[in-house]
């Protein structure tokens, strides 16, 4: 157990090693480790963010899909309504046209009947004039008695 200059030598050596460690070893290792730690934390963060983004995108996609479905349903409903309307309109038109045709036909029939009556009336008045002429023995001047004949024809 001799105390000698080994003691001094060891102190100097210790000092040199500590200086070396402090200068060239510790800061490099620690900064590299801290940098890596930060990198990993950032990576995990990014992954979390991406996951959240995906979730949001999925939700948005779902919303859009539902909206589209709703719109499609609405459009189909509108189309149905419009079709019904068109059919109703068409029915209405057809009915109106039918009525119009019927009315026209009736009017024609009436007109025809009136015309026939007129002709009949005229013939009756002629017959009456002819009958009267025969009875009277002479001809009746049609123009002279036309007023009378017309009145007669109207009365018939």
């Amino acid at each position, binding site marked *: 157990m*001799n*105390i*000698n200059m*080994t003691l001094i030598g060891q102190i100097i050596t210790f000092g040199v090693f500590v200086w070396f*460690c*402090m200068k060239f*070893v*510790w800061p490099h290792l620690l900064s590299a480790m801290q940098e890596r730690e930060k990198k990993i934390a950032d990576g995990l963060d990014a992954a979390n963010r991406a996951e959240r983004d995906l979730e949001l995108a999925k939700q948005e996609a779902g919303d859009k899909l539902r909206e589209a479905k709703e719109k499609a349903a609405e459009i189909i409903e509108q189309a149905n309504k419009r079709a019904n309307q068109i059919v109703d309109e068409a029915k209405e038109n057809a009915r109106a046209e039918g009525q119009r045709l019927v009315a026209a036909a009736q009017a024609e029939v009436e007109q025809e009947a009136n015309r026939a009556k007129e002709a009949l009336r005229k013939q009756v008045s002629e017959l009456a004039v002819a009958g009267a002429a025969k009875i009277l023995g002479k001809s009746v001047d049609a123009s002279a008695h036309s007023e009378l004949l017309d009145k007669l024809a109207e009365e018939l």
Partner: protein
Amino acid sequence: MAGNSQEYISHHLTNLTYGKLPAGYVRHHTDEQGHTHAEELSEATWTMAHSGEEAAAMGFSAVHVDSLGWSIGLGGLIMLLFWRMAKKASSGVPTGMLNFVEMIVEFIDNTVKESFHGRSALVAPLALTIFTWVFMMNFMDLIPVDVLPTLFGALGVHYMKVVPSTDVNVTLGMALFVFALMIFYSIKIKGITGFVAELTLHPFHAKNPLVQAIFVPVNFFLEIVALIAKPISLGLRLFGNMYAGEMIFILIALMFSAGIALGLMAGVLQWAWAVFHILVITLQAFIFMMLTIVYLSMAHEDH
């Protein structure tokens, strides 16, 4: 046998010493025929010590070449490893040895953060140096005690103590360096007055200036003893543990030459003691580091 054992043990406990023999010292040489010659030195001579007595006669002007050599070699080795790993380190994926080195660095960093409450760029690298270096020095204890001395004996080197931490110079040297740092930081943080006040105003304190004046020398005595005890206990604890461990290994090694039965038993004992020692060397390295951190933390604390 008894003489042989004593020789064996003391041979194992003698350092390879280079130093200055004083003028008038009588050296004893033994030649090949076994004759002893006495030679008186006419002037002080720097030389290798040929025996424990010569080494003791050299006094302070001597160096334990083996302790210092192994200590510098092992420290250099571990520093080289850490330096190479520090150059390799990046924020990318760590591989192989770098993982191991980073594990140690992280462990030291956490320990320092837990125990040291100041801010210092020195303490963590200091702790790393102490832990790894002391561990390496202690680790030499696990190499069977005769391997390296025999190897060096074949090369003509007669004394070789391979465990630097069994040399009190080495452990006390480190403790004194720590002590110097404690004093330096105490004065740097608290100022010279703060440091003196810490030494003289505790543990006894009085409001009355006269009573306080009486307390000052008492306090100073108590505090200075406590202060000096720190590096002494720090250095001697490591030395004592490693020296005792080494001693047991040497005693076990003695049994190898005492017949087959004792030799086999020695093998088992050596194995068991070595396994136990794996714990001891790590623990002692950790304790040395931990106490250094705590002492420096105390030096940084302002009351």
